[in-house]
């Protein structure tokens, strides 16, 4: 067995948490070769080499690989794919964009959002917004997987893997990057935070998110939102937790003024402890909450911040 793992790299460098969690999953199979691809990638590769379980880091540097555009990144992975039994990546928006394209060109199925690796060919993944867990056995020669990072712990960083630079083949040019608009967030990143404080439509305005942020600051938590809050324009899309947003599994998830629709629960049901604060005692969120408090978030949240 040999595993090729696509490291999650952004313009600001290696996304250590997502990559290290995917390594934890992949190293259950065998040692991992980590591919760092981008426009300027040497620093990210140096950091990637520290991740335990990584036997080798491959650097592929080319202007066409900046911003992880799907077509050139896919062509690069295919040029390196021979000999690998598994091609793996953390299930980020970049990997979800790229890996199905890789799989199709290898004429294999992709296995999305793996939450458990049972063996080299058998994997578990959630379906129906997390309401069922499917165990699938792949009959394909190469297994292409994305890993749901929230269910794996990040690997430690005590390694010093070899770093090797590869020649980048001629890459297709069908798409042009124009710009990124990245939300500047002060606190921890949503999908790796130990504590998440989320609000729903009941928050009422962008300004009112101030009380959520204040509580989040106190707890060193990331701020999340339900789709209703995002659609109403109270929070940026990027904060959305759920089937179509981010999937989180923190130690503590505080849902403030969130009713608990199926699609929202899909994104946070794996949290260790769930706290629900809602005025409606019949809200479905109370069925999954470990601790529920029936009350107005505008009373409860500031009190909570004060008492912590």
């Amino acid at each position, binding site marked *: 067995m040999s595993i090729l793992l696509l490291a999650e790299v952004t313009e600001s460098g290696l996304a250590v948490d997502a990559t290290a969690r995917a390594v934890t999953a992949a190293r259950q199979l065998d040692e991992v070769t980590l591919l760092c691809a981008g426009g300027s990638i040497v620093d990210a590769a140096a950091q990637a080499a520290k991740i335990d379980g990584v036997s080798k880091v491959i650097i592929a540097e080319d202007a066409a690989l900046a911003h992880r555009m799907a077509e050139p990144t896919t062509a690069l992975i295919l040029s390196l794919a021979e000999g690998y039994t598994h091609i793996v990546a953390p299930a980020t*928006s970049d990997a979800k964009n790229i890996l199905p*394209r890789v799989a199709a*060109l290898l004429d294999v199925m*992709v296995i999305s959002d793996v939450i458990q690796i049972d063996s080299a060919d058998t994997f578990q993944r959630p379906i129906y917004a997390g309401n069922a867990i499917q165990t699938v056995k792949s009959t394909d020669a190469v297994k292409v997987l994305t890993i749901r990072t929230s269910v794996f712990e990040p690997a430690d960083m005590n390694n010093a893997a070899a770093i090797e630079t590869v020649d980048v083949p001629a890459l297709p040019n069908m798409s*042009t990057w124009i710009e990124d608009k990245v939300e500047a967030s002060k606190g921890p990143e949503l999908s790796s935070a130990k504590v998440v404080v989320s609000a729903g439509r009941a928050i009422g305005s962008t300004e009112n998110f101030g009380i959520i942020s204040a509580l989040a600051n106190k707890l060193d938590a990331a701020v999340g939102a339900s789709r209703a809050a995002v659609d109403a324009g109270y929070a940026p899309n990027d904060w959305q937790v759920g089937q179509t947003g981010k999937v989180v599994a923190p130690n503590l998830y505080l849902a403030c003024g969130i009713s608990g629709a199926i699609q929202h629960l899909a994104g946070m049901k794996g949290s260790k402890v769930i706290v629900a604060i809602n005025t409606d005692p019949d809200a479905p969120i109370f069925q999954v909450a470990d601790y*529920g*408090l029936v009350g107005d978030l505008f009373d409860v949240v500031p009190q909570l911040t004060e008492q912590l």
Partner: protein
Amino acid sequence: MKILVPVKRVIDYNVKARVKSDGSGVDLANVKMSINPFDEIAVEEAIRLKEKGQASEIVVVSIGVKQAQDVLRTALAMGADRAILVIAADDVHQDIEPLAVAKILKKVIEDEAPGLVIAGKQAIDNDMNATGQMLSALLGWSQATFASTLDIDNDNDIARVTREIDGGLQTIDVKLPSIVTVDLRMNEPRFASLPNIMKAKRKPMEEKTAADLGVDVTPRLSIITTAEPPAREAGIIVNSVSELVEKLKNEAEVI
């Protein structure tokens, strides 16, 4: 320019899926089925492009069981011009994998020669998020996934797409023809009016089979079992903020 929109018939998004006790799958017998919500957004976007004069015809395609006719009729009632149904399964419990769907769509596209394909970003049943990317790969076309805005520049054969990525938004230009997969934020799909539902019954719907198109739909992933997710233990209702803080500190030990 002709636009092709693949649509999938899935369990209605408001229905909580029930896992069959024998572990063979999710029970879909007598469950309300609907058009996949992301596909509805894709249909809406295609119609808006036609209304702006940027598209000449909208063809909707569904792959699966015969009953998928109903989601095609929904799309026709919204404003699509004609429909193609590719029958590839005889039981509603048989979900055709994205790779096979992509291969079938590729055949349909070779016949229809659309200038753009707009698809949903994922189906809410298998949650794969793969078909659009796979189709784009098989065709050798460009792709723009998780799109929240789409502007067509017919003169230069490009589309400018804003994509929802982790951390924010990314804008890219893709060469046409291209595959665009849409995110929730793209638009608010319209409701079909009663007269349009009546009219949709007379719009053309062509039926084919996967075999006609020469595509093998044998799954690559065999499903060993489908299980309920682990149930959470029943929680408690606390009466005050101070009680909550006390429980989180001393009982749950998370703060």
